[in-house]
Each structure stands twice: as C-alpha cells, then as structure tokens.
C-alpha cells in the first residue's frame, strides 16, 4: 500500500538531486533579500506578542483578579490555554520520534518545523502555569525540587509538581532532539554561507560537523535513542497533564479515561496545527515538492484516526456518568449538555467529531484549502474541549450553594491572543534563520540515494 501511495503522491517531487535539495532549502535561509511577506507576517505576530507583554505587566501589577476566575471556577483561560498549547506540541515529537521508529519516510520533510512548533508551543504553554499563580514571583521557582530556607520541599504528591517535571523534561528533551537533528544542516549552512559572520555563527553551532563516517555512526545511534526516549515521554506528558484533573475529586475531572483520551486529543490538535502551518508555508516558499500531497493526506488520516479515539472518550464519559449511577456524575453530564454552558459542549462535538468525518472522502482529504479550514475548526474544538472539562465541571460541583458562573474577561483574551503572537513570532524567526526542512534527511530521499538504500 505504501508503494502504491508513492505512485500517487511521492514523498519528494521528481528530478531532485542532492544539490537541488540542498540549495533549495538552504537558499531560503541564506538569501540576502528577505521576502516582503515575511516582514508583514512577522510584523503582525510581533505586535500580538506586544499585547502579551502588556497584559502580563498589568497582570503582575493588579493580580489574577483581572481575569474571570473566581470561586468555584478557580481555573479559566489560563489552564485551558496551557493544556491547549501543550497538546499542540505533541504532534512535533510524535512525527519526529514515533514516525522515525516506525520508519515512516514521509515524516522527513515535516519533522523539522513540527519539532520547532513543539518547542514554541511548549514555550507558550509554559507561560500559563507560572502566570496563573497568585504570586508568580515566588511560584516561578518554589515548585522546583529544592528545599526552601525552612527546609521545606515541594509536595511530590501534587499533579502540579508532576507537571513541572513532565513539562520541563519534555521541553528539554525536545530541544536536544531538535538541536541534534539540526547539527548536520548547520554544517551545510556553514559551508554554503557567503558572508563570513554568518559562516562563523552557523559554524559555531555546527560544532565542527564534517559528516565523517565515525560521526554518522554515533549520530545515527544517538538520534535513534532520542527518538526511543521521546516516544514514551510525549505520551507521558499529556497523561500527566490529564492527572491535573483525574486526580481531583470534582465530578467531570475524576475519570480514569482521561490519560488516553488526552493523549489522543493532543495528537489530534497537534496535527491540526501542523497542517495550519504547513499548508501556507509550502505555498509561500514553493516547497510543494518536499511537502507533497502525500504528507498532507497522511496527516489528515492521522487526524481522522485520533478524532475517533477522542469521540470514543466523549462517549465513554457520558456512558460512565450514566452507568455509575452516581448522582453527582449524572448531574455533571446533564449540566454539560443542558446547563448554561451547553453551547460549548455541542460546539465541541460539532468541531471535533462531526466535521472531521468529512475526511473519509479522499477528494476532501487531499484538498489543501479544505484541510486548512478543517485544521482551524479542530483547533477551536480542542480549545472548547478543555473549556468544557475545566469550566463546566467546576462551576457546579457538589454543593449547590457554592455554584457560580464564569466568563473570560478582556485580559483573558488578550493573554490568549498574546501567546499566539509569541508562538508566531518565534515561528517566523525560525523559518527565516533555520532550515525548515531537514536537508540531510531529504538527501536520503533523492533518487540518487535510493540504490544505496536498497542494497541493505
């Protein structure tokens, strides 16, 4: 089947040689005249980033009271966005690690910027756990495993501390993985660069790579091991995030199905974001030969598959609420569907379960414009999922006397939009200064390299 697909859409356009691949990709970075479009995009992204900085400043001056959070709804946009961003990050690691282990060649051209996306998404996500605290100036480091002046340690029983471990490990390993993958390409850029300063900068980060067989031997092994490590890691991260809720006693949180369905949801959201980024990118830089319809379609298939898992999760939640016979659970589910926030539940079902199933049709699955639209719908849907889990579970818990309502304030929104700005800013810098596609791995795909491959 794989070979058949290759007939339909190859993983690389025809007529490419080692040289053409190398020059095409490195030229995007080494060119002296940055496309005007880049400046426009970066300008917009950066102004959104400014909105983020402004909001954070006001937040630190006034306190989290500027948001809509209250008692009983102690978490709002802050944690919703945290989970949303973390989820988006997952696709990157999945593509670069899991698909590598599964020897999926088509991953090659998208893993680089998918990994970059992971890093930037995690960076955005990381903002929220810190800034959602009442006293971030101390909270930022009091969660670290070290004894304070009173010899007091963090509480290792708390899922939030698990988050600290999981997310920081995830960020670190993703960064290492990304950098290791970059080394040979940095060497390429070093060797291609005309300007001496540029040469020195890339050379510095290339740490003296020369493509020696001995290097490749260690390198390949290291890369493989990193992939093997990242695979359980990426699964663990969203599992741990789901513990934030599953460990709680609140109806709608206290569910054992959370880990798998959070992970599936994360991959779902992640691939949606990859598409959101890849589709414009390949157009803008004429990379259709490297990010072919094959890639696009495969990602669409992954989304479809994960959407089914997520749908199963929704179904099980409802079923268990009824089957448990627990009046709190039953009311929680009833309240989700028919309560004041019922709209969010049905909107989420529409975005994550209904619309996506149009991808069974190949014509739609291979229509980039439609997929771009779908990817946005899924991103919205996944955001709503977190909204439903956090807000509708909290706002009506055990004692009717303490029920309340929640609405995000202008500052909730500006913070959210601001992190999108941060994300895009980093991404624009990335596509300008680093090869968005792994050059050396693309070389392995050009016809000239194939016979060498087949021999083994």
């Amino acid at each position, binding site marked *: 089947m794989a070979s058949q697909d290759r007939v339909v859409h190859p993983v690389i356009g025809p007529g490419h040689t080692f040289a053409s691949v190398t020059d095409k990709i490195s030229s995007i970075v080494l060119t002296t005249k940055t496309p005007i479009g880049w400046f426009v995009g970066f300008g917009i992204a950066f102004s959104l980033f400014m909105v983020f900085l402004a909001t954070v400043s006001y937040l630190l001056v*006034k*306190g*989290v*009271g*500027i948001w*809509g*959070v*209250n*008692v*009983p*709804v*102690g*978490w709002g946009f802050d944690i919703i966005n945290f989970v949303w961003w973390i989820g988006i990050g997952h696709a990157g690691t999945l593509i670069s690690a899991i698909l590598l282990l599964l020897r999926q060649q088509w991953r090659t051209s998208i893993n680089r910027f998918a990994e970059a996306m992971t890093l930037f998404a995690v960076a955005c996500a990381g903002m929220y756990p810190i800034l*959602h*605290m*009442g*006293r*971030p100036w*101390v*909270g930022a480091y*009091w*969660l670290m495993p070290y004894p*304070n002046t009173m010899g*007091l*340690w*963090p*509480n290792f*029983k*708390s*899922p*939030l*501390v698990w988050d*600290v471990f999981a997310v920081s490990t995830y960020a670190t390993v993703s960064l290492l993985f990304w950098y290791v993958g970059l080394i040979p390409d940095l060497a390429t850029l070093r060797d291609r660069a005309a300007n001496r300063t540029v040469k020195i900068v890339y050379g510095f980060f290339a740490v003296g790579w020369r493509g020696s067989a001995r290097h490749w031997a260690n390198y390949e092994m290291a890369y493989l091991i990193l992939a093997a490590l990242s695979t359980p890691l990426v699964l663990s991260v969203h599992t741990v995030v789901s513990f*934030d809720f599953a*460990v*709680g*006693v*609140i109806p709608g949180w206290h569910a054992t199905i959370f880990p798998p369905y959070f992970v599936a949801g994360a991959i779902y959201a992640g691939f949606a974001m990859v598409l959101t980024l890849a589709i414009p990118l390949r157009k803008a830089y004429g990379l259709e030969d490297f990010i072919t319809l094959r890639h696009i379609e495969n990602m669409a298939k992954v989304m479809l598959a994960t959407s089914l898992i997520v749908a199963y999760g929704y179904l099980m939640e409802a079923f268990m609420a009824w089957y448990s016979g627990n*009046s*709190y659970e039953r*009311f929680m589910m009833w*309240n989700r569907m*028919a*309560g*004041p926030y019922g709209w969010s539940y049905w909107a989420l079902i529409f975005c994550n379960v209904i619309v996506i199933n149009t991808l069974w049709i190949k014509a739609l699955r291979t229509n980039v414009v439609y997929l771009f639209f779908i990817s946005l719908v899924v991103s919205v849907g996944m955001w709503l999922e977190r909204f439903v889990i956090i807000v509708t579970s*909290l706002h*009506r*818990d*055990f*004692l*009717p*006397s*303490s*029920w*309340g*309502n*929640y*609405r995000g304030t202008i500052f909730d929104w500006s913070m959210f939009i601001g992190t999108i700005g941060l994300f895009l800013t980093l991404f624009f810098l990335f596509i300008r200064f680093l090869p968005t596609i792994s050059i050396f791995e693309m070389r392995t795909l050009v016809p000239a390299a194939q016979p060498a491959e087949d021999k083994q």
Partner: protein
Amino acid sequence: MSQEHVPSTPVTLEGVRRTGGQRRYWKSLDELADAPAFLEFLHREFPEQASMFQDPKGRREFMTLMGASLALAGLTACTKQPEETILPYVRQPEQLVPGRPLFFATATGHDGYARGILVESHEGRPTKIEGNPEHPASLGGTDVFGQAHVLGLYDPDRSKAVLYLGQQRTWGDFKAALREPLAKQQAKGGTGLRFLTGRNTSPTLAAQMRSLIAAFPGAKWTSWEPATRDNSRAGAVLAFGEPVEAQYRFERADVILSLEADFVAGHPASLRLVREFAARRKPAGETPEMSRVYVVEGSPTSSGASSDHRLALKSSEIEGFARAVAAELGVVVQGGVAHAWAAPVAKDLKRAGARALVMVGESQPPAVHAIGHAINEALGAVGSTVSYTAPAETAAGGEAQSLAALVAEMRQGVVEMLVILGSNPVYAAPVDLDIASALDKVPFRIHHGLGNDETAARSHWHLPASHPLESWGDLRAADGTVSIVQPLIAPLYHTLSELEVLAAFTEGEQKGHEILRAHWQDALGAADFEKRWNRALHDGVVAGTAFEAKALRVKPGAWASAGATPPPGSGLEIAFRTDPAVFDGRFANLGWLQELPKPLSKITWDNVALVSPKTAAELGGVKTEQTASGHVTELAELTLDGRSVVAPLWVLPGHADGAVTVHLGYGRTRAGRVGSGVGFNAYALRTSDAAWGRGGLQVRKTGGTTLIACTQDHWTMDATPHHQAEERHIVRSVTLAELAKDKHAIQKLGHEPAPGLSMYPPHEYKGHAWGMTIDMSACVGCNACVTACQSENNIPVVGKDQVGRGREMQWIRVDRYYEGTPENPETYHQPVVCMHCENAPCEVVCPVAATVHSDEGLNDMVYNRCVGTKYCSNNCPYKVRRFNFLLYQDWTTPTFKMLRNPEVTVRSRGVMEKCTYCVQRISRARIDAKNLGREIRDGEVVTACEAACPAQAIVFGDVNDPESRVSKLKAGDRNYGLLAELQTKPRTSYLGAVRNPNPEIPGAGSEGQQHG
C-alpha cells in the same frame, strides 16, 4: 479653606501631640493641611467615591490622600487609656501582659436597649466583641450588630471635627456660640428649646434631661426611633391601660405561636429568646422532645424559617387569623376570619395551656397585641411563659406622634433651638412629615452624632460624638437590667458623649465619668458605693436593677369587638422592615454588614423589593439570571401615595402573595465611602400611617435591569432539578415523630462509607484532635458567626463588584436550602466552615505543601508558602477556600490597623485563605494550660463562631476526649458528615435538623415527607 483653621484640625495635631515620636511630622503636616485634598479628607466628604473600600479607583484616590494618613499615623500609636479609672486595667496593672488580650464588660445599645458585651482589648485597642454571659439580654451570644460594634469605632468616616456650616470649628467655638441663644432661652423658660434623641434607656441621661427641663421648664424632649415600638406599647395600653413590656420565656414554652413576631432578629431580647428557643430544639436520647413553633408572617424571616409551621399571610390578614384563633380559645373577640389552621393551632395551644405562648410582632396593629395578651391570659401563660414589666425606655410608645408634634412646632416657628442627639431624622423620619423643610424654619440647629450624616448637613452645628467604646454611659436592657457602659479607649478624635454635650447646657464643662458616678452615687447610695460600683463595672450589669413583674389583668375593650381593620388602600400591600444587615441605616457605612449575605435572600450590598412567586407572575414575571458578574434582575417602580422609588424586584419563596417587602436602611446619601449610594431608600415611601406597611402600592416594571451581588444561586436553581440537594444528602432533616420511631432516621438518609475503605492506613492523632459539630436544628441563620469570624480573623471586605464575581471572602457561609413548594417551602440554614478533612483533597494537590495537616488534625494554611495556584480551591468539595484575587486588604486606612487582631496574619494579594478553626485561640489555650501545668480542658478553646452563636448551635472541642461535649454530640444519633461518601473524613460534622410538625395541620403530613 484659609490658613487659621488649620491649627484647629483636631484629629491630626492632637494625634501628633500625643505621641512625642511623631513631632517631626509637624512641618509636613502644615504643608499637608494646606493641601485642599487633605482638608477635604478631614471633612470626609467623598460623594464621588462613596462606594466601597475595595473599588480600586476609590483606593487609588485614597492613596492621593495619604497625606491624611500621615497625619493620622499619629493615631495608631496613641491608644492612650482614659484618664478615669476603669476596671480592671488600672487597678491591676500586673494583668497587662503584652500580647495578652484583656476583656472588659460593657454594653452596646441596639435600638436603645442594652446588650451586654465583653470587649477584647489588645494593648489598649478594642479589637473584638464577645457576648457577656452574665447579661440577661446576651447570655453570651451576640448578633451581627454587636460584632460590628468595634468596626463602628474605627469607621474611617466617623466625624472627627466640630463643624459649623461645614467649616471646622473647635468645641470652644461651639460653646461660645451656644452661650447667647441659650441665655435667650433661659429668659423665656426654654419655650423655644427642643431636644430630639433616639430611644433612651439611660437612667443617667434621663436624669440629666429632667434637670434640664427643670432649668428650662418650657423645653421639650422627644425621643424617636425609625424602628418604632408604638404598636406593642399601644397594644399593652389597650389591654392593661399601661405600656408594659412583655417578657417571654421560650425555654418554658412547648407551643409557641408567633403572629409576625421575628423573635430571631426583631426583638430587644432576641439573643436571649434565640438561646431559649434553641435550647428546646435539640432533641436527643431515647425519648426526643422539642417545642413546636408556629409562625404566621407576611415577609419571610429567620424566625419563620426556623419554625415547624409557617403560614404566609399578608400582614393585614394576620389580625383576622389572630381573632379566629382567639375565638377558638374562648377569648371574646369578633372579626375572626376563618382559616383551616385556626382550629388545630388553637387546639395545640390549649393542649399546652400554661406552657404555650403567643407573641405578636411590632408590625401588627395594637389590637392584635391586645388579642395576644388576652390569649396568653386565657391559656394561663401569664406568670409561666410570659410576664409583664415596666418598659425600659424613658418615654414608652407614641414615638411617631411626638415626632410629628415636634415637626409641627418646627413649622409653626415655635422651635428656636433644636438639639438632635444621636438621631438622623432627615434620613429616616416619615416622608410625609418632610422634616427637612421643617428644619429650615428652626433658627439654631445642633446635631450631635457619630457621622456627618444627612441631618448633620441640615444643621448649623455638627458635633462629633464619642463612640460607646470611647465614652461613659449606662443603658437598660429590655428587662430593666442596667449596664454601665465603660470606655475601652480614649476618644480617637476630639469628640464628646451625649452626657457631656447635654452637660454643656446646664452644669457646663463636665466629664462623662463624673456625671455617671454622680448619678449612681445617688441611685446606689453612698454605703460601700465603691465596692458595688466596681462590681457593676466588672460584671457589666448593675445587680438588682431588673424590673419586678407586674400582676395585670386584660381589660375588655373596643379592640375585642372591633372587627379586623380592613387592609387600607387597594393594589398591593407594602411591608417595611428593618434590614437584617444594616438595620435602619445607622450601620450603612460598616463594610462587614454591607457584605453580609441576608439570611434568606443571600443578597449583599443592596436592598430589593421582595415578592412571592405568584405575585411576580402577576407582575408579568420577574426574570433573574445568574451571570459571571452577579445576578441580573428587573427593576420596578414602587408607587405609594404618589411617591415612588425604583427598586430591583426579587422573588423570595414563602413570601405572602399580594405583598411587597422592602428593607429600610439603604439609599443613604451621607453614610460615608461605604454606605452612600448603596441600594434604594425605602424611607422615601414610608409615611406616618404606614410605619410597617399598608395597602395601595402600585408596582410597575420599568423594563430596566440591575446587577445584584447574591452569594447563592437564585432559589429556583433553574438549571437543576429541585431535588438535587436532597439526592445529595447535604441537608438532612426528619420530623420528631420519625426520629422517635427510628433514632437513626437521620443517619439512614445518607451513605457513610464503610470504615477501613481507604487503601491507605489512617494517620494516628495522639494528643488533641480538634473537631466541631454544627446543629442544624438549632441554627436560626442569624449570621452572627459570619461577622464574628470576619472580626476575629481580619477578613477583608471586597465590595459589591467582587462579591458579584463570586469572590466574597467570609470564611463561614450560611447556606440556605429550600424544599417543598416555592409558595411555602421548608427553609434550612447550614453554616459551612472548613471541614478540616482528615483526607483533605486540597492538601494533596498543593504543589508547594502550603496547606498541610497539623498533628492535631487541623488543615493548616501556610500563607507565606502559598503561591496561589487555586488548585486547592478547585479540589475542595465544600468550596470553603477563599482567594485574594486582588489586593483586598486595606493597608492604607490607619484606623483599620488598630482594628485588626494581632494574633491573626493579615493576608495580602495572591494567597489562599480559609477557616483555621481559630488556631490562634487554640494556641492561647495551649499556652495557658502549659503555664498551669495541665491539659487543655473541654470548653477552653472556643472558636469565634461558637462564641458568637446565640443558639449554641456550634460546638468545638477535642474528639479524642470521649468526655468532651463535641465527642458526645458526634456519638449522637443526629450526627452526620457532609459529603462523607467522598471519604474525606470531615472533622466538622452536622447534627441533622428536626422539625416538629403538627399532624393535624393541613399539609403537615406531606411536609413531614419532604426531608432533605
């Protein structure tokens, strides 16, 4: 304002002078004093920011006035003790241990009547009010007003300076200005001299007045309160020919019928009545017994909510019912209106005979009071459950008429000099008197009061009054017992007490202390006076001053024959009631009370027009929806006699149909930064002939809406089936019959988890293990615990906006649950404190171990470790945790620094807080016990809520000690844990509510079934 006034700014310079260390402020002070902002502050006129403490805008403005606090900074240091001897402080200086509070007995006047209190004083700063167990009107309990008494002392908007037409003057200036017109009055025998005070029970002040009248034979003294008791006085006159006070003994009564009498909140002896009521509502043992209470009322009250049978009748219809019941009992009356309940109620009363009791509320016309007296006599209750004594106030009854007469004289121009002491008629007098315009006809007007209020603004001279905690005085309780009011602290500002001001009219310069002692020297006689005086000061009551019971017979009269007075006017009936939080408006500037959720509606920072569901439907439906920023409800225009106000409509279950209840005390214009412009002014509709209500009200929806800060979801719980609360076994209640049948009836209502269910071994608690029980059968939902906790634990006031957003900070909340029909539901009050769960869900999730368990089982909150993730609050099934979303504490107002309890950390922005079981009190008891080399005894640790509770519904103690009261209660049959099925193992447990319905009452059977 020009320079020469600056030296006479009394607060600041005095404050500065008193503390040597502050001298260096002199220079800056003069500069400050120049700043108009600073002078404005001294005048404390904040019309534009008169909203809330916490309104950030307001506070920022306040920062600009920091100059003022610089000046006042002197104050915080100058807590000088009064020069006069008070006990035990000066006599036993060794008692003053720094860091150890002292307690002094004194009294607060509520509506004129004394309530004995003990005041906790830290290094000379009164910080907390407790009830005085030796005082007959307290018995150790307090109410919200008593608790807020101390906040009144430190109210930053109190008058600080003598004002003449709003300009600052000195007392010297005033006395000079008084001399000439007073001489004029002297000449003409004081025919133009009038005094207006609040209801007075002070023997000394009465004596002073007598001598004043003697000096000015033509002078007249009017005493008047907005919360008039004219009806009961007139009723007594109808029945007995004299305005006697009825003294009730609830603990002796098996059957109580209340005809719109709010014994929980609306009676001078409420605290005692609640204590006695609750004592008979805690059934236990093999043969549980309790009293049965019927309440007939138009506007739902806590009394009705705590009753066994509540009959919702319009105020005007109650007389007919009363006559019917009386007739059933063989009292010769006409005009009874048949009612299904009349016969069974009468039968029940008759069965109880001398152990029955009928009580009539102030809102009922005199005739009904007379009927009540007649029924009690017929039942033989007189001498058993009720007795009659002289009234405590100097001028009993006829307050409204005397005020009207005074106003008439003012209009005629007879009144040349009017002295208003501690009264605010411009705001609260019946609107038809239009006292404001009448005042303008008086050439020389003096107002003496705590605040520069509406009346002060209409007077030539405003004299700042000393707070009762700053001054000497005396007061009578409703049963006549006299309490000496002794100052805990020297006046914070240049203020004088009423006694001292009155002295200026006769003797001239005189200290309150001398006046008081002089009077009591005569009263008690010289024989070992010192000893008796000291005893009185120490105990807080003057022994043997309670009135003798009078032997009286009810005289037949017109009241019996006359039929029920027909409800005047057409249209809806309006009922005026004092507010459960701000009373008649005098407490409007006290944030604690403004932010107090009303017992039934749970509304804060507002008054509304309460209507029944049916009436609401007739008005075209009242739409109230809960939003993220508060409850949005509809506005309506209430019109009575062509006068109208716009008020928010609010549907209250159990309200009588065809009636509207409005609470007084809101819509003040000059209350201060907290109370001005809050709510609507119901006095604007209140006429002389409608002190408590009447018919003829027109209600028209304006189409507008408004935001109400309500701390509980609207009663309909529209989103959820109504039985949810029961399904969850949150409130558990059974009837006495069910309890007698099966002593475990309450426990069987829920599912307690099997012991040993946990996969972890339980923690061992050696030594003490603190726990609490809350008796839902005794709780009357009076909120005293809420305010007591706020006072004890330095809990900030957050303001309407924040409450609307669900960010109120009170550590205790009193949950209100309804069951049954919205037309006449059963109402339950459930105070919720931290459960101190042994398996606390909040602790596990805290990432920094900021909330952990102590080895005595307390769920401790470590503020300085908290980083504010709010995860604990999310994971708390009881939602008892409170978070400082913004900077709620007021760090700037100097007087609040004096108010705070030094034993409790003052929390700042970004940290979580919650009930600590008053850990500071536990520590104090532990230290005392250690010093004495013994264990802490049961009852030595009393939490603030427990101490305040007039019903003694809260019991705290060591659950490891099988002999402790709390252990015994927890072992009882009514004990259950809230949400215990979650295996949280709460240390706070509840004693299920028991109601004692009369099966013969129509519908009682069904009510019996609807238990939570």
